[in-house]
């Protein structure tokens, strides 16, 4: 009895949201709370903002866009349940989400089996390689972040580095990719430390790195409060080496949190962080400035790279639905694959049936923090 | 032939000698009572004998075997069973289950058989239940069999605990104040029950404040005061012993339990 009535109650709750005529149901599974809320929160805000924007302009192909989103709390099992719910119960036409790689990999098979186009917002290269015909992603891969950092190191004549990485999915995956790709750039990783997602002091790890012979620079892979603490500890210990952060340090909030310690820190970032520094004729200038203004105006918090991923995913999906002229899964999928030369806040996307991300290294700009603000290194 | 011999037994709690240099012997079918004022160390002695506490000094022999500081469940396997002064009934189990649980040593079954509910396991449970019902009848609790123990009266719980201890088919039974809190009729019943058990050849070690009961049924009495044995002998000798009388009169707080 209990079992049935509980389910019946939730059934009623969901029935209220059943499909009406002439609407496009867009699903989202995001880690709005939990250890990855740093990613999911701006992603959800961006999607909500953009859906309103599109509907205010008359929707897509004259149909209203309805966003149905669930918070997976960063847990793959819950995400999988919500993915099933989106497909089976909410009958969405397309899905954006998967804030983390773990969640993305857990939900992707659901969308693949139901032939629903899915754009992930997570970084790891495994999402698109091997290629899944229904799965796309808008963020750079963490491997590209490593390559970008290594390129800059090489340009500075540095080749021997220490790494300190977060133990979450983001840090772990990027650490592996960096180790994997280091050889190609003649970089040697001589010290390799990690820290937990909730750690509040990384001086022991940094002391060890600084004491390692031959370390010429330090690279920190991670997101959330970790990189801010690493940066502060780095300054506290007076380590006189170049410090590189990753693209996980993705908003002005980092500079606020790290304070003076952030001076001189370099990281591969997107145009979004340096909207005001972009030349007027920069292809990304318009889109970046518009998104940044809209987001910061509405939510009164600094825009982040992660919200930018959602921004690009939304527009790529919206345009694909528009050009497909319907929400037929295969047609939308083909339209996404046909996205070429589209400029988003993250970079210029050139999708193809073989490339489900469509970004190249040029999307990353090497940034340095100078006088409490960003500057672009060329 | 003695069943249990206790020699020079002692235990300290934080420097206080709770029991010291206590020795006595129990023969099969004999009823030995341990008496003494409150705090004399009677229950502590029981806890040592049943393996709950490890003694600091002395030894305990059972059937000529040294069983000092042996774990309670192993002592139980050697035929020692007990009740508790402050009641340790399984309150969330039925009266019947309490007595059935007392048959633990007799009904070893494999866990696998129990999980699968194999016929052997279920047959064993039925047999145990039959025996347990018999024991409940013996303590006049047959009608409470299916009731949860927590709903029974104090006197009933006392008797239930005796039934549970008997279920283990002990050769030596330690009874810690079996008649406490019982009315005259109930006390008489317990009196008869103890005598009956002893008549079957079970040795009984009894702690009891009801002196009428003690004097009536004991074969032998050991008197403790401040953890030490101050006297030992037949009931008639003990009731005349000046040290015993002094020990009891010295503790007026005993009130109702004065030596009669």
């Amino acid at each position, binding site marked *: 009895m209990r079992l049935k009535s509980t389910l019946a109650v*939730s059934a009623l709750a969901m029935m209220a949201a059943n499909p009406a005529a002439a609407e496009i149901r867009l699903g989202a599974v995001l880690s709005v709370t939990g250890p990855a809320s740093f990613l999911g929160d701006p992603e959800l805000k961006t999607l909500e903002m953009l859906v309103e924007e599109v509907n205010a302009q008359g929707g897509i192909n004259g149909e209203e866009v309805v966003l149905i989103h669930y918070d997976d709390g960063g847990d793959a099992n819950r995400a999988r349940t919500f993915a099933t*719910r989106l497909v*089976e119960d909410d009958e969405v036409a397309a899905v954006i989400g998967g804030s983390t790689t773990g969640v993305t990999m857990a939900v992707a098979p659901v969308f693949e089996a139901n032939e629903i186009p899915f754009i992930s917002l997570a970084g790891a290269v495994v999402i698109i390689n091997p290629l899944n015909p229904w799965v796309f992603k808008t963020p750079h891969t963490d491997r590209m972040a490593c390559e970008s950092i290594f390129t800059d190191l090489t340009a500075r004549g540095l080749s021997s580095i220490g790494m300190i990485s977060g133990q979450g999915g983001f840090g772990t995956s990027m650490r592996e990719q960096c180790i994997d790709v280091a050889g190609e750039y003649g970089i040697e990783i001589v010290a390799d430390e990690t820290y937990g997602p909730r750690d509040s002091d990384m001086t022991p790890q940094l002391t060890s790195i600084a004491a390692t012979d031959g370390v010429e620079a330090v690279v920190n892979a991670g997101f959330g409060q970790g990189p801010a603490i690493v940066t502060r500890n780095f300054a506290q210990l007076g380590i006189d080496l170049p410090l590189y952060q990753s693209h996980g340090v993705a908003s002005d909030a980092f500079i606020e949190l790290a304070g003076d310690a952030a001076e001189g820190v370099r990281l591969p970032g997107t145009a979004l962080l340096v909207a005001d520094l972009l030349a007027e004729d920069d292809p990304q200038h318009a889109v970046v400035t518009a998104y940044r203004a809209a987001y910061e105006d509405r939510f009164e918090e600094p825009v982040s790279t992660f919200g930018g991923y959602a921004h690009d995913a939304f527009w790529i999906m919206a345009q694909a639905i528009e050009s497909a002229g319907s929400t037929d899964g295969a047609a939308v999928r083909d339209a996404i694959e046909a996205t070429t030369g589209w400029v988003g806040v993250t970079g210029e996307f050139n999708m193809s049936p073989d490339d489900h991300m469509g970004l190249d290294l040029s999307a990353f700009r090497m940034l340095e923090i100078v006088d409490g603000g960003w500057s672009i290194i060329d | 032939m003695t069943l249990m011999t206790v020699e020079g037994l002692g235990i300290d709690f934080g420097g206080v000698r709770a029991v010291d240099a206590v020795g006595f012997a129990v023969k099969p079918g004999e009823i030995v009572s341990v008496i003494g004022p409150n705090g004399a160390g009677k229950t502590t002695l029981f806890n040592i004998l049943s393996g709950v506490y490890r003694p600091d000094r002395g030894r305990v022999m059972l059937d000529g075997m040294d069983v000092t500081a042996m774990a309670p469940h192993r002592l*139980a396997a050697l035929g020692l069973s007990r009740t508790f002064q402050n009641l340790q009934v399984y309150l*969330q*189990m039925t009266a019947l289950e*309490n007595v059935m649980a007392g048959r633990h040593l007799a009904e070893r*079954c494999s866990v696998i058989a129990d999980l699968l509910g194999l016929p052997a396991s279920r047959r064993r*449970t039925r047999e145990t239940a039959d025996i347990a019902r018999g024991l409940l009848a013996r303590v006049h609790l047959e009608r409470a069999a299916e009731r949860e123990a927590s709903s029974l009266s104090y006197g009933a719980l006392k008797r239930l605990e005796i039934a549970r201890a008997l279920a283990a088919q002990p050769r030596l039974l330690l009874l810690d104040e079996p008649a406490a809190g019982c009315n005259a009729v109930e006390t008489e019943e317990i009196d008869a029950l103890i005598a009956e058990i002893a008549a079957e050849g079970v040795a009984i070690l009894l702690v009891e404040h009801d002196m009428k009961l003690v004097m009536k049924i004991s074969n032998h009495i050991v008197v403790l005061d401040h953890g030490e044995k101050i006297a030992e002998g037949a009931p008639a000798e003990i009731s005349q012993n000046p040290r015993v009388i002094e020990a009891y009169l010295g503790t007026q707080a005993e009130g109702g339990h004065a030596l009669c």
Partner: protein
Amino acid sequence: MRLSPRTWTLIILAVLIALAPVTFPSAFYFRIGALIFVNGLAVIGLVILFGYAGQISLGHAGFAGIGAYSAALMPMHLGLHPALALFAGAVLSGGLAFLIGRPILRLKGHYLAVATLGFGILVFIVLNNEAQLTGGPDGMAVEDLGLRAVSDALGLGLRTAEVWYWFMGLVLLLGAFLALNLHTSPTGRSLRSLHNSEVAARTLGVDVVRYKLTAFVISAVYASLAGSLQALLNGFVTPDVAGFLHSIEWVTMAVLGGAATVLGAVFGATILTALPQALTVFQEYEHLLLGLIIMLVMIFLPAGLLPSLGKTLRQGESI
């Protein structure tokens, strides 16, 4: 004919499992059902440990982690069929429980709680850190158990979610059957007696260390199987399956439903699995409400939902 509580419980469960799909509007509900059964299985294990033997564990997700990663790794590296990996994982978990149980179960109360918690966290850390083997925090894919293929071969015409629902329903019934058998068996009586009074049980010959260990091992096997089945159901696994929160979730299910009974376990699993799905309509108030509901239930029905409701019903009858 008078049926035993054991038979009644099984009949009630079977009827609920069989009839619930009538109310299911979509395949999603079959997944929720399957998840309820997975959680229910683990919580029944905890009922044996906690409700029967009175021993708390805040680390049983550790065993789920071992089960889940056995199902993921053994087919990949040893070429074992997932079904065999599931049993191998259970043996592994049971064996590990046997080894660590002896020292851990000497502890009592909160000390036992922190020791089991520590064990669970250690498993999580290993799964999280040994990325070469486990894929690290991003997790790894799990081979298909092949249930759908079996169903299709039998011509049942069921969708994947439905196949899992019925399969897990059967597994849950089996788990309940075993736990109920145990309850009224000699072993079950010994477990419950040491729960009620450890000292009395000892003086009646119960080797409490051995029996606590028995309950610990059995519950570890239940948790391990639940972990394996969840991994196989999802086709994917992350270290979260072994996380502290997962352990806490199961304990909360057990206590919320009524820790001492199998039916309470399933009830608790149902509530805490379905409730978050219903609460999603409240958006950002979801967590606030979940916390509030858990508090209110425990304040007003401290014995857990099922026993408290049962008592109310019985009182209603007698008036």
